[in-house]
């Protein structure tokens, strides 16, 4: 009894307690930062697609925010903030930022307005917001449609809404048709022409072309030319039709302006939508963003090519990095004699992960693009030189560069997984008369698969978000074609490609109007994060299935 109550008994519980709080605090701090970052990205990324109402304001006569001398201004409110005025007094001034659209009329798309300058606010029901092929969005009041035959339809008339809807729909259909003609049909003709030309060049080099072949080629070429002209004129006609009908609208500052209905992609009345219509439009815009091609130097439209490029590059990288890393790890762990040399190699491999990624980019450019690509060109595509085929940046070289960069991650996790396979199971296999390789192949590798996939997940997470090395080995701002398509041989690994990470950099820091590009930057960031999460989730699901299958649980 005495001993129990003695003060010499150390209070084991009380001592560590402050450290619990201390360590926990740092974890919470880290989590908080990540949460803040994600919240900002998700909020800004998603609000890009939300069709907010358009506010119209009247300004005081001497306001700085006046546009084109008018005191009326309309747009959707992007930001409400308190700015501290310059100078010694430093008074706080509340202000709002309006997205005004009509970039071609205002020379800007955004306007800061000091709250005290505003005399009245309203949400006009008739105001229209249209997405155009050029100059971003239009915000204004429809006035009338002027048809090609000089007839007019005033916006006050009953038929006006239906007519506008129909015209925009027709224009969109015509645009798809033009694209089909120009991209697919004319593209196919161009490829055939190119083939004949290369053929000719090949003949020229060897000897003169036999008369029979030359005539046949001439005839083919002439046939293609004729077909081309027919299609081109068809496209030209359609293009003219696109500009035939015009929508006259009045911008909030007062002037009337004109837009060809052929350049209106979509339009809506932002102040007439009910909540369901708003939500519907929100999702429709997200879908468009994901599945459409970019427009206007990437600041408008969708980012499908960048998503697709990132996806293809990441998958290709995985296909390369897994066998590469796994085989290297097998040698290192299973075959090599463990000793100082192997330990040194292991340390070197680990340190490879710390080399700045741009260094890998430079290596990729020198080794893959110039050396390997150049060699492939001179061996297989010499007739096209000096135009490089593989000897320039391309998705294959980007994938290989990233594979090289991420291979240490796969090696390290594979080694860990190999070590974790119990010795008893290996011995049981060897005792059954299996060779070392049979044991690795049939017992050790299947049991290590979950660990290998963990390595792949880490590699993908690192590779998919990497930008710097890609700029040297094949990423471009705008790629005319995708690395996979329906034209034989379907997989075009030599093609340049677009990438979400580079897209973010390019939009946010290289575009002339960074304010206009900001929503796209956030939306693209959100998508990149989403894509990486999706790829990882897929890998994790596969890993869990394997784990359940093998039930070793040793990882």
């Amino acid at each position, binding site marked *: 009894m005495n001993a129990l109550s003695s003060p010499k008994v150390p209070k084991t519980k009380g001592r560590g307690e402050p450290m619990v709080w201390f360590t926990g605090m740092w974890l919470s701090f880290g989590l908080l930062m990540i949460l803040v970052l994600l919240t900002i990205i998700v909020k800004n990324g998603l609000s890009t697609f939300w069709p907010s109402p358009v506010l119209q304001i009247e300004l005081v006569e001497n306001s700085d925010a006046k546009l084109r001398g008018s005191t009326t201004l309309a747009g959707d409110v992007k930001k409400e903030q308190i700015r501290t005025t310059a100078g010694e007094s430093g008074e706080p001034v509340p202000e709002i930022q309006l997205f005004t659209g009509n970039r071609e009329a205002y020379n800007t798309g955004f306007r800061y307005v000091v709250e005290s300058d505003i005399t009245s606010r309203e949400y006009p029901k008739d105001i229209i917001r249209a997405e155009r092929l050029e100059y971003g969005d239009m915000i204004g009041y429809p006035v009338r449609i002027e048809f090609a035959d000089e007839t007019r339809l005033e916006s006050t008339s009953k038929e006006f809404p239906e007519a506008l809807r129909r015209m925009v729909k027709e224009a969109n259909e015509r645009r798809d048709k033009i694209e089909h003609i120009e991209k697919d049909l004319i593209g196919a003709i161009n490829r055939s022409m190119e083939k004949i030309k290369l053929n000719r060049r090949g003949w020229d080099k060897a000897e003169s072309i036999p008369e029979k072949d030359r005539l046949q080629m001439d005839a083919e070429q002439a046939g293609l030319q004729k077909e081309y002209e027919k299609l081109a004129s068809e496209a030209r006609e359609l293009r003219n039709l696109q500009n035939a009908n015009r929508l006259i609208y009045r911008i909030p500052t007062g002037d009337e302006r004109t837009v060809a209905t052929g350049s209106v992609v979509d339009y809506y009345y932002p102040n007439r939508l009910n909540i369901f219509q708003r939500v519907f439009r929100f999702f429709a815009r997200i879908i468009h963003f994901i599945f459409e091609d970019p427009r206007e130097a990437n600041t408008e439209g969708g980012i499908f090519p960048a998503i697709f490029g990132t996806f293809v590059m990441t998958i290709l990288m995985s296909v390369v990095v897994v066998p590469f890393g796994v085989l290297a790890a097998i040698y290192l762990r299973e075959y090599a004699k463990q000793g100082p040399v192997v330990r040194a190699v292991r340390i070197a491999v680990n340190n490879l992960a710390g080399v700045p990624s741009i260094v890998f980019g430079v290596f990729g450019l020198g080794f893959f693009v110039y050396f390997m690509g150049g060699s492939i060109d001179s061996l297989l595509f010499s007739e096209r030189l000096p135009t490089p085929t593989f000897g320039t940046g391309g998705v294959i070289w980007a994938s290989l560069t990233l594979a090289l960069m991420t291979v240490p991650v796969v090696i390290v996790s594979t080694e860990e997984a190999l070590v974790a396979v*119990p010795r*008893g*199971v290996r011995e*049981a296999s*060897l005792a*059954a*008369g299996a060779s070392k390789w049979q044991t690795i192949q*049939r017992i050790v590798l299947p049991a290590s698969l979950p660990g290998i996939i963990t390595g792949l997940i880490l590699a993908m997470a690192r590779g998919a978000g990497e930008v710097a090395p890609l700029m040297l080995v094949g990423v471009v701002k705008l790629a005319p074609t995708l690395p996979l398509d329906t034209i034989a041989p379907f997989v075009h690994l030599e093609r340049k490609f677009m990438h979400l990470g580079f897209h973010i950099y390019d939009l946010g820091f290289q575009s002339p109007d960074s304010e206009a590009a900001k929503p796209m930057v956030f939306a693209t960031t959100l998508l990149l994060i989403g894509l990486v999460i999706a790829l990882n989730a897929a890998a994790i699901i596969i890993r869990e299935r394997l784990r359940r299958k*093998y039930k070793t649980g040793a990882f």
Partner: protein
Amino acid sequence: MSNEPAEDSATTASPALPVDSNPEYIKVRNFSFNYTPEVRVLKNISMDIPENQVTAFIGPSGCGKTTLLRNFNRMNDLIPGISHEGTIHVNGREIFDPKLEVIALRKRVRMIFQKPNPFPKSIYENVVYSLRIAGKNNKSLLDEIVETSLRGAALWDEVKDRLHESALGLSGGQTQRLSIAHAIANMPEVLLMDEPCSALDPIATAKVEELIAELKSKFTVIIVTHNMQQATRVSDRTAYFYLGEMIEMDDTEEIFRNPKHSRTEKYITGRFG
């Protein structure tokens, strides 16, 4: 531990054998073994193990029974730094002969481990593993072998309805019998069993013991055991090891009734060990 290896400590008595069996099926002569140059684990062992009989190895822990067993199919090859002296012949063939294929030896001399290690595969695939790696994939042949091996290991009735389920779901006793089925599937000549019952309950132990008695008609069996009753129940001959030396080897009945060495007597009567 004695510094000098004892000389000629093994005295080989003439065994009572089935008529056509080879009394020197496994022939060990002056065999010594080291894991590292400093530690000598087996000292100058000479012994003969007869064909188609059950031979038990007994002795206190750490005396080298497992080490010797693992030499019979050269499982110790995997450990770096080992060295040996002397010879071991299996069925007339020197197993340390550099020309001998270790893989072929391991197919003939099958090891069943103290702790069963089923592969993370189905029961079926566990049984046919050694056939698959030998390149035998004929389905009807494999089906037949699975049934005969599992029957041979007295496991068939318990698992016949779940052959394609994971082997990791079996109980300890079933798993040990599965490793026996796995071991006999490809028709080896010798079965090496290292304390096969040490992790089993009495009922499972009885089953495995029954099985061993049947197995000897087809295979030469060596079993390491710490259980004296088990040794008397299943084995024909018994060898007693102590600190890396083989002290005495004789017919099991003889050794338990009338041990020649006082150390052996102390051990088997439980006064020491």
